[in-house]
């Protein structure tokens, strides 16, 4: 990898760790322990279901919150602290800075998800006393969650490249909510006709698709995930992340930093 990008990515990761981002793991550990112990006592037959549903939902929501709130500050904080000028005065190009920041935060989220995944499987082992073959699909769900993080991180970077941190957070979170309903949105667009159809279809294809990346319910019910879906989701998430990152690079390249 380009050394400048690698340096920026590494520093972004270190900064996130210094900012105590990984402290969320403590809250997550408490949540999983509480759920595992409590559900076993107050319910019958849904222990696995609750642990998987609650665990994966928490992994997803914690990660999305981190991706948005750290992502929006990646550029603005550097400008505010004036450290960006030091970085760009070295042989680092602006696009390398953006890509490095993206990879650094994505790496932080992957590490965070890794530790949370250990928590989910530990809680699952506690309530079920053994693993089953279908538990492997939980790994696929976790992989899809990481793909979601890539998209949302790239979007947070894109929005932060041209707006204030608060607005960028609002935009990024709105995209997450809209993207969660993107399949419905495309379905509704399909019901319209004429110009409205083209317009709504355009919007429906422009917003990120998080629906297909959410297989939490089906893996909780031990249903397999098709190999083709893994392939398509991977290709789609990478494409969309590149789209958002390219947009961020385009804006940032032209931004007047004086």
């Amino acid at each position, binding site marked *: 990898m380009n050394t400048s990008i690698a340096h920026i990515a590494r520093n972004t990761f270190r900064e996130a760790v210094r900012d105590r981002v990984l402290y969320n793991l403590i809250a997550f550990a408490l949540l999983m322990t509480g759920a595992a112990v409590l559900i076993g006592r107050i319910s019958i037959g849904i222990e696995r279901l609750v642990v998987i549903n609650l665990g994966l939902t928490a992994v997803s929501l914690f990660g999305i919150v981190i991706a948005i709130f750290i992502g929006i500050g990646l550029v603005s904080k550097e400008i505010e602290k004036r450290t960006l000028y030091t970085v760009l005065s070295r042989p680092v*190009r*602006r*696009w390398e800075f953006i890509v490095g920041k993206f990879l650094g935060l994505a790496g932080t989220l992957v590490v965070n998800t890794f530790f949370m995944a250990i928590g989910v499987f530990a809680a699952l082992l506690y309530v079920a006393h053994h693993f089953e073959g279908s538990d492997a699909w939980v790994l696929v769900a976790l992989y899809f969650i990481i793909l979601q993080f890539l998209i949302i991180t790239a979007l947070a970077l894109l929005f932060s490249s041209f707006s204030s941190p608060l607005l960028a957070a609002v935009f990024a979170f709105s995209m997450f909510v809209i993207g969660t*309903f993107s*399949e*419905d949105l*495309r*379905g*509704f667009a399909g*019901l319209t006709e004429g110009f409205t159809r083209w317009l709504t279809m355009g919007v429906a*294809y*422009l917003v990120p*698709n998080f*629906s*297909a990346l959410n297989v939490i*319910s*089906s893996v*909780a*019910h031990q249903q397999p995930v*098709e190999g*083709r*879906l893994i392939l*398509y*989701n991977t*290709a*789609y998430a990478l*494409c*969309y992340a*590149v*789209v958002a990152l*390219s*947009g961020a*690079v*385009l804006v940032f*390249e*032209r931004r007047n930093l004086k």
Partner: protein
Amino acid sequence: MNSTQKVSWVAGALLIGCMATSIPLLRQMDAMRSGSSLEEVLYIPSGKVLKRMSLGYEGLLADVYWTRAVQYFGDRHRTGAKEYALLGPLLEITTSLDPHLLVAYDYGCTFLSPPPPNGAGQPARAIKLTKYGIQHNPNEWKLYYQLGFINYMDLHDYAAAAQAFNEGSKVPNAHPFLKVLAAQMAEHAGERQTAFMLWSAAYQTATESSIKANAAAHIRALQVDEDVSTLERMVTAYRQKIGRLPISFDELHATGLLRSTPVDPLGHPYKLMADGRIEVATPDDLPFITKGIPPGYKPADVPKFLPTD
């Protein structure tokens, strides 16, 4: 070209290229996952649970579920499906989330009650849904009309239909025809004329074009059934009088049984067959008819409605 321009060109090309690539990928995923969002219904079948999970936004969620119900029925109906397993749960969830969403009872029951392929063939579930609607919207006369309609048309429970129309007629601002229908039930239940009145009322009160078209098609079908019965009675009378079957409608005309060449509601002349039966010329254009059908005719999976309805 300087470095910034080069980066801009590459980033622009990547943006457009990847956006274009994402569209076929999404299409593939949509094709793979068609109806998958509906399958989620099976995971959370309780509207009450969903209501709590919606954090106060149950109105919006109800709208989403109602649209899903419409899409589900529309997609399956278009392909001539005979089974609509998720329709009942979708409607029940919708109305649990928003018990005042009248459209879900009104049109929902139109999908749920009639036998396949025109509906899900679940009149008992439709009755339950309508009663739930009445419980939460006791002043909506259309729900009583809906209840009476299902009881009459799909369950043939004329007493229950009469009771529903009667109760509906007492609701403030109820349509006057409910009183007429209640009276009609007592004397003429099961007669074609009563069904004609019910479908006419459905046609007049419907605001949705597909529901109106459905009612219009049923009215035409009742008219055809009535015409064919009358013509066949004339043929029988001619045979008794002359001693043989008539060859054409002109012979019925000559004996004074018929005034002019009979035509169906679409204006096509009826056909007099050699064995004395009456047939319609275009059965595909007259869905729901029970008489005048050519032998061996298989009706289309999806009833054909006229654009003029």
